[in-house]
């Protein structure tokens, strides 16, 4: 086991390299730029392809090209860049192309600032571009998971032939923690049965999202929804801590889940039965696990750096069976421990 100190954004690139990604295309934006920097340093050393694109529209379309040829490709950006990529991501979903997109969220709307926020939730988790599609969304909460989930992202994107996001924030991108390097390196096999690689065996293939016939497009859309339903059934991931006897369950992903975890520990010391539910996948949202928790008379608290975007999904998952409270900060501010404790104490009637 090789352990080193590594920055979150660097861990993403390490994960991609060990996952056998051979193409990176990206455009600078704080707080995601180190992904671009590290890719520019390491991809060429491994003989792999790196291009600093002219825009995020170009990056995502370069990804579309490399993915069409069956290569493991990825890009990284932050809010404004992810917004620009949405057209391309819709095309990726429509053409069923695997690509990994890393979003190191910053505060918006507009230019906002470069502080951490989780306000890309809706544009990332709900589709974001035009059409009836969704992307797989993985939500790491430490430097180790920045790598591990990037690797998983490549696997799932390929398995389901759909774009996969790693959704993190400025804190996770910028922080350094001890990190254990992957145990194995993947040599991608490349499924050429559908790809267009400029070879004899793929000459017959076509990558496209066009269905002129309304019925055919409806059928395709239905097939996509079936695929998403299977992804929901098979790929939902979450972590639960002390939820069994909990009266109050904090729900949080990414960096907010670590603040929530500290709050849970502090609250438990004062005798309050507080648990933590952390979705590790945001699409698929771990609905079944949350529904199970909602069968008891608990109060949920969404701890998020956005305006209730996560809270909406909690309510949907449990069909509004239980109260869901909100603790949030916006604008680049992190949620503080005191804030979460106040909410917990308020609910507990203290």
């Amino acid at each position, binding site marked *: 086991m*090789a352990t*080193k*100190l590594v920055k979150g954004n660097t861990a993403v690139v*390490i994960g991609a*390299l*060990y996952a*056998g990604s051979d*193409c990176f295309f990206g455009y600078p934006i*704080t707080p995601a730029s180190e992904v671009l920097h590290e890719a520019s340093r*390491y991809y060429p050393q*491994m003989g*792999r*392809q790196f*291009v600093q*694109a*002219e825009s995020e*529209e*170009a*990056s995502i*379309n*370069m990804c*579309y*090209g*490399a*993915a*069409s*040829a069956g*290569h493991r*490709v990825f890009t990284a950006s932050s809010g404004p860049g992810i917004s620009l990529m949405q057209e*391309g991501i819709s*095309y990726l979903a429509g053409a069923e192309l695997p690509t990994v997109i890393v979003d190191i969220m910053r505060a918006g709307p507009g230019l906002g600032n*470069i502080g951490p926020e989780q306000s890309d939730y809706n544009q990332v988790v709900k589709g974001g571009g035009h059409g009836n599609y969704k992307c797989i969304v993985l939500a790491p909460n430490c430097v180790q998971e920045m790598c591990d989930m990037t690797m998983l992202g490549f696997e799932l994107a390929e398995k389901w032939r759909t774009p996969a996001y790693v959704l993190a924030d400025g804190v996770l991108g*910028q*922080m*350094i*923690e*001890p990190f254990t*390097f992957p145990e*194995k*390196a*993947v040599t991608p096999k490349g499924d050429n049965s559908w790809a*267009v*690689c*400029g*070879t004899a065996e793929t*000459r017959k*293939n*076509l*990558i*496209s*999202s*066009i269905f*002129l*016939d309304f019925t055919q497009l409806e059928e395709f859309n239905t097939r996509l929804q079936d695929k998403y339903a299977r992804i929901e059934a098979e790929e939902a991931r979450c972590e639960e801590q002390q939820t069994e006897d909990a009266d109050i369950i904090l729900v949080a992903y990414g*960096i907010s889940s*670590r*603040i929530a*975890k*500290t709050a849970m520990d502090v609250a438990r010391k004062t005798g309050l039965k507080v648990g933590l539910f952390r979705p590790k996948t945001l699409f698929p949202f771990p609905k079944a696990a949350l529904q199970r928790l909602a069968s008891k008379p608990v109060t949920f608290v969404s701890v998020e750096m956005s305006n209730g975007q996560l809270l909406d999904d909690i309510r949907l998952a449990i069909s509004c069976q239980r109260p869901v409270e909100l603790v949030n900060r916006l604008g680049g501010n992190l949620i503080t*421990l005191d804030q979460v404790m106040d909410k917990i104490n308020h609910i507990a009637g203290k």
Partner: protein
Amino acid sequence: MSEKVICTKGIYPEFPRKGPSAAPAATHYCPGCGHGVLHKLIGEALADLGLQDQTVMISPVGCAVFAYYYFDAGNIQVAHGRAPAVATGVSRATDKVVIAYQGDGDLASIGLNETLQAANRGEKIAVFFVNNTVYGMTGGQMAPTTLIGEKTITCLNGRDPLTQGYPLHMCELINSLKAPVYVERVAVSDAKNIRNARRAVRKALEIQRDGKGYTFVEVLSPCPTNLGTTSVKNNDFINNEMAKEFPIQNFRDNSATAEHVVRSTSDFSKEKLDAMFELADIPAAIAHNTANFEEAQVKIAGFGGQGVLSLGIMLTQAAQAADMKVSWYPSYGPEQRGGTSNCSVIVSAKPIGSPVVYHPDLLVAMNRPSLERFKNDVKPGGTIMYDANMGDVELPVGVKGVAVPAQALAEEAGSDKAANTIMFGVMLELGITQLPEAAFARALEANFAKKPKLIPLNLAILEFARQWVRKNVK
């Protein structure tokens, strides 16, 4: 649109992708349209040059959106204007022959940036650009290439340069760049021009076959449907009016001297990756007793250039050397540009929650603004280390203050850049972080691994700081 048969070499004999059709070998293009002619020329060249098994054809958005119905090669359909970016991705990934086929709205308007940037990078792609002076697919709106005075549905009185600007000359623009290998404008308006176009298409594809770089062929092309004219009159319009604005000529041919551009091949081996990340000689962790370890939350702040972030990194390295849980989180971006920066370090025996320190056990303030900003956040019973050169300071009650002449001591110890190493030594000697001595030395070795000459100096400075503490701090 009515249909016309173009069945030829390099083109499928029938077009099932079109869907069920009474005329399975007829295209979707209007009679007299230039797209069909250009398809034929490209298809023929691909077949004659034996390139179909190594070619990826990219269909744009525009009337040629269905180019994939026809070309007997690998096909990719892409978003409006993005063909050069997609082509870049395909080319970099595969190093095969890649063709971007685009109209004037697609290439010169919505996709102008991608067009110029791919050309400027000298991507190994062949761009075929159909200039018919209008947006064909969407009903004949004005294009960047519409001639002055030419009437379209969005310039009913003719293009007026005062409000709509002038025709954009793509060959000329591309020719202003250094990287392109081949730039030529041709037309498909009569037999002689078509023969010339055939030669240019072949040339471009030969350059791709030989992997020499970027080629751009603009094709003046009829769109009788949207020009509201006949095929014959449209061809006259090309020869007499378009060709005046857009001269038919070769702009550049560097194919004789251009060399094959070699792309690297990917190495996926774990050995190479592990070597690149220098995983071979990671020293074993330093054992120490963590039974009573209390989580230590540290904030370090000062001017950029005072080694604030790297002092935080050194502490993080020391913690990691001692196999502790640790996190480092910097202030990032413009805040740094303002001159001050800070970082949070948390050292713990248990998994760390939020990596941001709001109430530090230890504040290291390298300058007065940082001291003033954070001193009231320090936990009761906590410590503030600050540079003694600030002079008199007021500290909150219940907090221990240690004035360290860090800058002066560093200079005395032989380096004016090592005030942070002095602070590091003071931290060690005061025992605030509860980390073993060996971990601090290890941290310095790791921190200066790229400049090994500085290691002995900094180890000496560390020791110097510790002696200063023993003599001066009770």
